[in-house]
C-alpha cells in the first residue's frame, strides 16, 4: 500500500540485462582478450628475433625488423590455421 515501495514503471525493464546485450558484451570482451593474447605472443617473438643487442635507442634496422616480424607472425598464424582446418582428419 505504500506507494514509495512500488517500482516506477519506466525503469522496470532495466533490472535484468537481456540475453542479446549480454552476448554482444561477452563477444566484444572475448575479442579484446584474443587480441591481447595475440599481441603478447607477437611482442615476445619479435623481441627475441629483432632486439638482439639492445642499444641506447631503437635503430632503423631494429624497427624495420620488428615491422617485418609482425607481418610474418600474422602470416604464420594464417598458415597454421589453414593447415589445421584444411586437414581432413
Amino acid at each position: 500500500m505504500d506507494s514509495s515501495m512500488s517500482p516506477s514503471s519506466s525503469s522496470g525493464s532495466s533490472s535484468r540485462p537481456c540475453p542479446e546485450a549480454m552476448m554482444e558484451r561477452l563477444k566484444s570482451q572475448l575479442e579484446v582478450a584474443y587480441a591481447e593474447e595475440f599481441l603478447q605472443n607477437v611482442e615476445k617473438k619479435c623481441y627475441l628475433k629483432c632486439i638482439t643487442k639492445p642499444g641506447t635507442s631503437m635503430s632503423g634496422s631494429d624497427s624495420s625488423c620488428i615491422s617485418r616480424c609482425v607481418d610474418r607472425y600474422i602470416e604464420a598464424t594464417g598458415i597454421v590455421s589453414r593447415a589445421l582446418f584444411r586437414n581432413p582428419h
Partner: protein
Amino acid sequence: MDSSPELQRFLQEEKQKAMIAEMVGKLTSECWDKCITSTPGSKFSSSESTCLANCAQRYLDMTMLIQKKFQSMQQ
C-alpha cells in the same frame, strides 16, 4: 530466462571458439620457434612456409596417435 537455450548455445559456441583460438595461438608459437630460425624477411621462404604447415599437421597426427594409445592402454 536466466539459462535460456540461446544463451547456453551461445556459450557453448564461444567456448569452442576459445579452445580453437588457444590451440592456434600455441601451435603458431611452437611452430614459429621450430621453423623461423633467421631474422624475419619481407616474405617467408617456401621452406619456411612449408615447415609451418607441416608443423601444424604433424601436431594433429600426434594428438591422434596419443589418443589412440591412451584408449588402448585403458582396455
